[in-house]
């Protein structure tokens, strides 16, 4: 058993090197296919992280009239915190609001002098509300308009991030579709190339195969090396892509982080944590694809 397995591997490796350039091209196409898939994963990851980052920043500020009491503002805070759509509601006192305002406009003397002229605290209390999802804001904006609080509300500042989010989602969706098309294209080329590689290998080895049959080699011994060869292709391509991905992400982690600015995610760590799943599933799918193609090529060209 061990001897036969060893020889199957030996013949498969011989096949691999005797058709080195064909093997090389096949692996290259496999690598391009996998790189495209991993690029999609990377872009998807970054797009999701960007969306999350934007979503986390989206908030509504409810400004109360100057005459609205702290109790009213705090009651509205409590009410808002009771809504399941609300992630957080922070009370900002009129004094803090004025102080923040001053800080924000410290380089604008006209504004500062206007405040000084009004005197005291020209701003009312405020409540800053963040939601679990930006889609919840329309509901929250409506919910605060109760008879209890509505008369005291001066303004509701809602920076509309929805358009930005939708744009990112649209771009991400298009990238995914484009990536899938490119990956599919490379996949198709990979199938055709491996089919041809095995066909050529069968042709090159036709004398050997004929003699194998003549001297009593069984089906598995004749077909096995070709199947193993196709598994080698998948293994080498996946290993190369895995090594290349970690090398690239490890070497340029800082640059990638800088490029994506505030998006707080370590792509390297993501691939490290999910590498087994990502590259394992890629290897399994690629192997299935190449084994099936090889089997199909053998069925057509290898008469055992």
């Amino acid at each position, binding site marked *: 058993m061990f001897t*036969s397995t060893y*020889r199957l591997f030996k013949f498969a490796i011989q096949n691999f090197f005797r058709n080195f350039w064909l093997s090389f091209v096949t692996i290259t196409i496999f690598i391009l296919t996998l790189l495209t898939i991993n690029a999609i994963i990377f872009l998807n990851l970054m797009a999701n992280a960007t969306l999350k980052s934007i979503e986390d920043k989206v908030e509504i500020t409810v400004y109360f009239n100057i005459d609205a009491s702290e109790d009213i503002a705090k009651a509205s805070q409590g009410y808002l915190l009771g809504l399941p759509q609300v992630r957080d509601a922070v009370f900002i006192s009129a004094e803090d609001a004025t102080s923040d305002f001053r800080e924000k406009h410290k380089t604008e003397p006209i504004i500062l002098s206007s405040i000084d002229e009004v005197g005291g605290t020209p701003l009312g209390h405020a409540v800053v509300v963040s939601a679990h999802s930006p889609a919840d804001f329309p509901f929250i904006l409506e919910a605060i308009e109760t008879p209890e609080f509505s008369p005291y509300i001066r303004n509701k500042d809602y920076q509309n991030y929805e358009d930005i989010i939708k744009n990112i989602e649209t771009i991400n969706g298009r990238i995914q579709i484009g990536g899938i098309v490119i990956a599919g294209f490379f996949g198709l080329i990979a199938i055709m190339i491996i089919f041809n590689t095995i066909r050529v290998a069968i042709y090159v080895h036709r004398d050997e195969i004929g*003699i194998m049959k003549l*001297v009593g080699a069984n089906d598995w011994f004749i077909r096995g090396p070709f199947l193993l060869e196709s598994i080698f292709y998948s293994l080498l391509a996946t290993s190369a892509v895995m090594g290349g991905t970690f090398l690239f992400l490890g070497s340029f982690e800082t640059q990638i982080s800088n490029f994506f600015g505030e998006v707080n995610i370590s792509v390297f760590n993501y691939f490290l944590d999910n590498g087994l799943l990502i590259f394992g599933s890629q290897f399994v799918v690629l192997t299935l694809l190449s084994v099936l193609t090889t089997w199909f090529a053998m069925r057509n060209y290898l008469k055992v």
Partner: protein
Amino acid sequence: MIKLKNVSKLYKPETQALKDVSLHIKAGEFVSIVGQSGSGKTTLAKLLFAEEKPTGGSIVIGDWDISRIRRSEIPMLRRQIGVVFQDFKLLQRKTVGENIAFALQVAGDRGKRIREVVPQVLKIVGLSDKIDRYPRQLSGGEQQRVSIARALVHRPKILVADEPTGNLDTIHSHEIIQLLKHINSYGTTIVLVTHDRDIVNALNKRVITIQEGEVASDMEHGKYKLS
């Protein structure tokens, strides 16, 4: 040993290679099957090592009815029947020793046994000193000896030789026939397919003549009768 009963072989659409052939070859016999080109003698040889399946009738080797052999059983049959061809069928990129070892490797034999058997069969065919040569470095007769050595590695009870001297000159042909006789003397049944009159007449062994797919004659100490 080998029993053919009413064997026929039809190649579609309408070439009747063999018609109702019945034969009995006993263990240890040396049988020449002769006939003109296209007579069906090679088809008969191919049936013996399951390269072809009969259209009708039965072929029994030992107790094994190979006319109904399953595809998965063919390798087992071929390890019990040695086959030699006119064109030697040697791998040019392997040495003599490697060509012979190859037959054992594909059958799953261990390295130790291979290292024992290869020199033994090379000694039988008289090529012990050529183990590291490549086929292109050998004469036609020597290449055919390598082919015979390879056919012997599984110690077959039957050796089918299909025109083994077809590519050889008279001297080398004679050497090959002597070698086959030598192997036959150890008890191996030899089925020699040939159209070489001189060889058949010199052998003075059983001769089965095939004509137009039928057994025209079967003589114990026969001669080549075809014109």
